C-alpha cells in the first residue's frame, strides 16, 4: 500500500494498529506528509458532508400515481353463498324453529274452540307425518350441509387475503 492510500485510510479511520503506527511515524518525520494528510482530511470531511439532492415536491405523488393499482391490491374473496341464498337459508331455519316452538306449545291444546285450532291441528298432523317419514332426515342433512357451507364461507372470507 502506498503512502497516499495509507493517508486516505488514516483520514477515514480505517487503519489497523500497525498501519496507524506507520502513518504516525511518517507524520512525525515528514512535513509534506502532514500537509497531505490535512488536505485529505479536508476533502474527506467535505465529501462526508455532501447533501443529497432533492426531487420536486410532487415526486412521491407522481410515483404513487404511476404504480399499477391492482398488482398487490387487497384480494377479497367473494362469499361462496350469495346474500339472497343466505336470506333464504336463515328464513327456512327460522321457520323450522318457529314451527317447532309452536308445536311444542300446542301439542295438548286445552281450548279446542279457539279460532286457530284448525291451524294448530293441521300443524301437529303435518309435524307428526314429518317426524315419522324420511323427510326429517333429509331436512337435517340439508341443514347440516348448508350450515357447513356457511361456516366455510365465513372462514374463507376472513382469510389472509383480506386486510
Amino acid at each position: 500500500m502506498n503512502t497516499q492510500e495509507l493517508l486516505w485510510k488514516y483520514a477515514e479511520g480505517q487503519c489497523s494498529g500497525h498501519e496507524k503506527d506507520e502513518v504516525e511515524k511518517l507524520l512525525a518525520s515528514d512535513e509534506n506528509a502532514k500537509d497531505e494528510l490535512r488536505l485529505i482530511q479536508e476533502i474527506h470531511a467535505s465529501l462526508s458532508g455532501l447533501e443529497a439532492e432533492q426531487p420536486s415536491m410532487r415526486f412521491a405523488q407522481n410515483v404513487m400515481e404511476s404504480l399499477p393499482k391492482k398488482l398487490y391490491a387487497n384480494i377479497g374473496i367473494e362469499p361462496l353463498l350469495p346474500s339472497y341464498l343466505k336470506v333464504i337459508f336463515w328464513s327456512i331455519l327460522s321457520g323450522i324453529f318457529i314451527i317447532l316452538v309452536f308445536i311444542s306449545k300446542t301439542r295438548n291444546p286445552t281450548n279446542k274452540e279457539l279460532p286457530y285450532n284448525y291451524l294448530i291441528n293441521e300443524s301437529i298432523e303435518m309435524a307428526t307425518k314429518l317426524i315419522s317419514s324420511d323427510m326429517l332426515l333429509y331436512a337435517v342433512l340439508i341443514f347440516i350441509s348448508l350450515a357447513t357451507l356457511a361456516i366455510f364461507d365465513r372462514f374463507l372470507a376472513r382469510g389472509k387475503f383480506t386486510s
Partner: protein
Amino acid sequence: MDNDQHLIAATLRGDQASYRVLVERYQDYVFTVAFKVLRNREEAEEAAQDAFLKAYRALASFEQRSKFSTWLYQIAWRAAIDRQRLKKLSKQSIDDEKSFLQIGDLEPTPVELLQQKNTKKLVQQALDNMKPEDAALLTLYYLQEQSVKEISGITGLTESNIKVKLFRLRDSLKNQLSRQLKTEVKDLL
C-alpha cells in the same frame, strides 16, 4: 417508525400507503444517484421514478438478503446508467486531467487555501467535472454511506475494482482541487 421490512410486507398485502412511506424515505438518495449519473434534473427525476416503479413491480421477488436501500439503489443505478447510455452522453472523464485548470507555481499550500475557501463548493465542482459514474460511485460511498460490498452489489463491479476506483477518484479529486486552488490564487495576485 416502521422499518423497511414491515413496510414491504404491508405493501405486498396491498397497502400502497406503506410504499409511499418507502418512496418518501429514499427519494432523495435515489434521485441523487440518478442525478449524479445523468446531470439533468428532469431526466434524473424520470429515472428515479422509473426505479421506484421497477422496485414496486419486483418487490415480491426481493428476498431481503441485502438491505432494501442497497437493492433499491441498484435498480436506480441501472435505470440511470441505461438512460445515460441511451443519451450517449460523452462527459469528461476524471482520467482526462488535461482538461482541468492548469497548475500554477507553488505558492501557498493547498491546505491553507482550502481552509479559506468553501471546500464543499469546490468538492462539488470537482464532482461535477468527473465522469458521471465516478461521481455516483463517490456519492454512494460518502453520501449514502454504502460499504464497498454494498456498492459492489449496486454497480455490479467487483469489490477490489471499487476499492481501486475509489482510491483513484479521491486522489484525482485531491490533485484537481490543489490545482484549482493554486490557479485561483494566481489569478488573484
